[in-house]
């Protein structure tokens, strides 16, 4: 009897989870289609469909294939990458307030952007092409630095020490930036402010092509490691008892999270809220098991960023609101609503 109850319960949960995933995919597709139709120049759904199938005018082709499609795809990729990164970092550090920013990714990337602007100026021709790589390098070096500073021989990296080190390094870089930013002129400062608010600005196929390989490798890897993440949640002693090489796994997972977030931040500017909120939203939806949590988290992140990007593009035409700002404006109220009605 009890066993039977157990299996029906499991089956129920499984159906529920499948439904949630299907729902998320449907939402993502919906936002994709709406996003294709909207923008400075409006296209009817029929036109969009015809253009996608190869029957559009030159102008329609240009708008869809060269401007909108890459941007939408980047928004979705960035959303899922940051969300997954946040989920992994929250799991590894066992702290609900952790996000990719904890590993200094946003701070490191921002610092590089400011340094670049100080030396070469905002009008530099190469800006669009060099900035993502610089941001990536800044983020990577900072994350590595935080890891090394938090590392202690024999003990490895304990979550609490990682968090404290992350805070300290972030604060240090923040201070350095305050000192530098005072010296910037107004155009440069506006550029930095927009970058830090998170505006998806790398909007052509080249960026899609640089982003996709990272995610193609890292997303399956992280999902493959979901059981390790579950075990780590039980605490270091128990995971060691379960035969896990805790320190090694932690290092790999953190590395993957950094690579995910850094590659995304490089093209999207500093959007950090997705990494904090998407894991919490998904946990509310499907619970704490990473095997189902991670895919849902990726979907939620993608939906959040692509919807935010679409709204940011149209709401104050012709000027755009940076995506990072829209993400928080849309995501935070929903998150607060969930928090208020949550009965746990």
């Amino acid at each position, binding site marked *: 009897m009890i066993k039977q109850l157990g299996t029906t319960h499991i089956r129920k949960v499984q159906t529920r989870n499948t439904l949630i995933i299907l729902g998320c995919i449907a939402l993502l597709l919906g936002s994709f289609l709406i996003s294709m139709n909207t923008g400075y120049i409006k296209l009817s759904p029929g036109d969009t469909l015809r253009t996608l199938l190869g029957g559009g005018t030159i102008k329609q082709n240009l708008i869809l294939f060269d401007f909108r499609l890459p941007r939408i795809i980047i928004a979705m990729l960035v959303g899922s990458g940051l969300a997954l990164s946040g989920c992994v970092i929250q799991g590894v550090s066992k702290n609900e307030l952790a996000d990719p920013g904890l590993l200094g990714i946003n701070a490191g990337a921002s610092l590089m952007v400011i340094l670049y602007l100080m030396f070469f100026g905002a009008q530099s021709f190469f800006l669009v092409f060099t900035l993502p790589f610089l941001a990536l390098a800044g983020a990577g070096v900072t994350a590595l630095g935080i890891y090394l*500073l938090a590392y202690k021989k024999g003990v490895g990296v304990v979550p609490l020490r990682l968090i*404290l080190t992350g805070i300290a390094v972030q604060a240090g870089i923040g201070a350095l930036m305050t000192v530098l930013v005072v010296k910037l002129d107004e155009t440069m400062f506006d550029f930095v402010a927009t970058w830090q608010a998170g505006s998806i600005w790398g909007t052509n196929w080249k960026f899609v092509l640089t982003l996709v390989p990272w995610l193609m490798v890292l997303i399956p890897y992280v999902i493959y490691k979901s059981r390790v993440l579950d075990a780590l949640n039980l605490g270091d002693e128990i995971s060691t008892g379960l035969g896990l090489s805790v320190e090694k796994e932690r290092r790999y997972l953190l590395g993957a999270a950094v690579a995910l977030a850094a590659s995304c931040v490089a093209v999207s500017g500093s959007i950090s809220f997705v990494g904090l909120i998407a894991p919490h939203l998904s946990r509310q939806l499907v619970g704490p098991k990473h095997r189902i949590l991670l895919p849902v988290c990726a979907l939620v992140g993608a939906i959040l960023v692509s919807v935010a990007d679409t709204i940011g593009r149209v709401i104050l035409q012709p000027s755009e609101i940076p995506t990072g700002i829209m993400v928080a404006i849309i*995501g935070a109220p929903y998150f607060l609503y969930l928090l208020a009605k949550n*009965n746990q």
Partner: protein
Amino acid sequence: MKLTKYKKILMPDNRTRCGFTQIGWIILIAGIPLLFLIMAFSVTKGAAEISLSTVGEAFFNFDNKNPQHLMVIDLRVPRVIASALVGSALAVAGAMMQGMTRNPMADSGLMGLNAGAGFALSISFAFFPEMNYLGIVLFSFIGAALGGGMVSAIASLGKGGLNPMRMVLAGAAVSALLVSLSQGIAIYFNLAQDIMFWTVGGVAGSNWQQIKMMAPLILTALLGAVILSRFISVLSLGEDVARGLGMNIALVTAICAVIVLLLAGAAVAVVGAVGFVGLMIPHLARYLVGVDYRWIIPSSAVLGALLMVLADLGSRMINPPTETPIGALIALLGVPFFLYLARKQGRTGV
């Protein structure tokens, strides 16, 4: 480690707790006179040097024709007092947040105060550009209070009422929302740089009017924090333990939230978001006096005031007559030290 040796000398037989208490007394007894000494020293320094005797004269034999007297009374003294008040307020607010939420990353910024003040600031810059200094400070305080109020209200809506964990999450979300809105306003109205200059300014513009409003508020709230510190110690053991000991968690959390709001709200309104004080000082205090919040809170108050006064002094002396941003200075001073602390005590809890 030197400290343990020191403890051993003070307390020969196994009394670590008492050793911590001793250090607590030392911080309070030596720290407060030291604070006043540094404050007096700080008044004499700056773009123009003023001798200590002139400072004394300015106090007891004020001559309103003497520019040096005016400078001391109208500019330097309020500024030094403001930094001491703000430093202790931020540190105590941070200590309370960390204790209540048992989260080492928590500080008063998580109550939505910094974000609320920033939001109010960007609104006042965008829509009421002719507002005067005091008006902006008041407006920021109202913003901070609104931010904190929003966080507490949303956190207490759910079943089971207000609890620290829910408050932290609500705080993160409300902060993100308000920060984004103010970033949006700043970018749309092209104000990002003006707002940045205002926040970087720190305690530079403090005046007596401001202190008369702020000091009673902060001092009362500090007293409240000291009285409540017992309950925070219990909360810091975890909600289950606290409940087991018969504590009304929702009530204590609510009262603590009000005190944090007063402390940090007043501080943030005056200096902007100098976040690192609230994060760092409680960790330092915990390292020195142990896990008992009856000691952590008063020591945080003294240490926070010391740090802020020193940082203000530094910001004036490094590169006169320009002032180095005080937030940057605190972080640059604090980061190496904080990294050291993180290495030392990474294995213990909050």
